[in-house]
């Protein structure tokens, strides 16, 4: 992907980022990034003293990432299904905060379920019975007071949005 290709892309679609929809370009991007350990920019502290990572540490991190990814995705879907409009973002943010608190203090039974869920995810079987249960597990992980706080966060965001609308329509 060079500047000439980017110019052509811009002429064709008006958006440079569309070039990543080209499978050949995307392959090249992956190949190029694979040559380098880091891509960071900004503050030197980012990589002044990087420490080696053991395979066990890397494996443990990936399990955490998959768990959070599955749980937070299902939580977002659950909240989005209510169609809270301008309150959706705030509700999801509050829900994520609370679910993370619960994930840090799981009962043995809950921990066993989540361990098995990650194992199932990594094995990629044709049927995923544990994954199918996740939305209801997420629902039950949050207490009535959590759900109430999530609803209040959405209500407050809608109120703020409404107040901004009233204020801006007054000056329009």
């Amino acid at each position, binding site marked *: 992907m060079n500047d000439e290709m980017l110019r052509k892309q811009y002429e064709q679609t008006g958006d*440079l980022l569309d070039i990543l929809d080209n499978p050949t370009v*995307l392959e090249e991007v992956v190949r190029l990034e694979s040559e380098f350990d*880091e891509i960071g920019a*900004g503050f030197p502290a*980012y990589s002044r003293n990087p420490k080696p*990572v053991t395979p066990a540490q890397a494996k443990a991190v990936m399990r955490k990432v998959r768990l*959070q990814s599955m749980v937070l995705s299902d*939580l977002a879907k659950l909240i989005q299904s209510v169609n809270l409009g301008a309150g959706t973002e705030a509700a999801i943010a509050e829900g994520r905060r609370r679910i993370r608190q619960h994930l840090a203090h799981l009962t043995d039974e809950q921990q066993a379920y989540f361990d098995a869920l990650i194992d199932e995810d990594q094995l990629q079987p044709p049927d995923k019975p544990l994954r199918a249960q996740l939305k209801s597990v997420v629902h039950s992980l949050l207490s009535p007071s959590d759900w109430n706080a999530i609803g209040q966060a959405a209500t407050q965001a809608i109120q703020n949005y409404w107040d901004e609308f009233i204020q801006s329509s007054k000056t329009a």
Partner: protein
Amino acid sequence: MLRLISLKTGLGQTVQAQLYSMQQRHVEDFEGFWRGILHELGQDDEFWSWAMKKRLTASDDRFEAYALEFEGLTQGLMWIETQWHRSWVNSAYRIVYIEALASAPWNRRRLEDPPYLDGVGTALLLFARRRSVALGYEGRVGLHALPTSEGFYERRNMTDYGQDPDKEDLRYFEYGRLLQP
């Protein structure tokens, strides 16, 4: 959401990540999830404050903050300045300056190989160039690369203008003009 961006998972599957103006949940992902992992793995950028960057962005028009999200998690963060920085080649020209760019720990090949998601750095860099075009800066973008990332920016065809004593001797890289405004 600003738009979808095609990227690849470490397993080679093409997926659509979502690019957002940075939201509170992205800061909380850094504070509540990235930071813990970075600490466990002994990485230094656990000390960066993306919350401060988001606050500055909200209070000052010249700053913009973006996040790349996939499967419910923040995969990369970028903070840019759009009005004060000038090209090192010709100071008559404004540039988009990348104040900070970071990929999630699980997308760094040194920590995870293959990474969870490939192409995060390139996508954010390309978006900075897109902002430069939109602002009338003709695609000019500058940044100071971290020592372990210099090769990446060279291979992305940015010109290396050498070490900058004003920026703790980090090397300065710049993209020149891509398009007419």
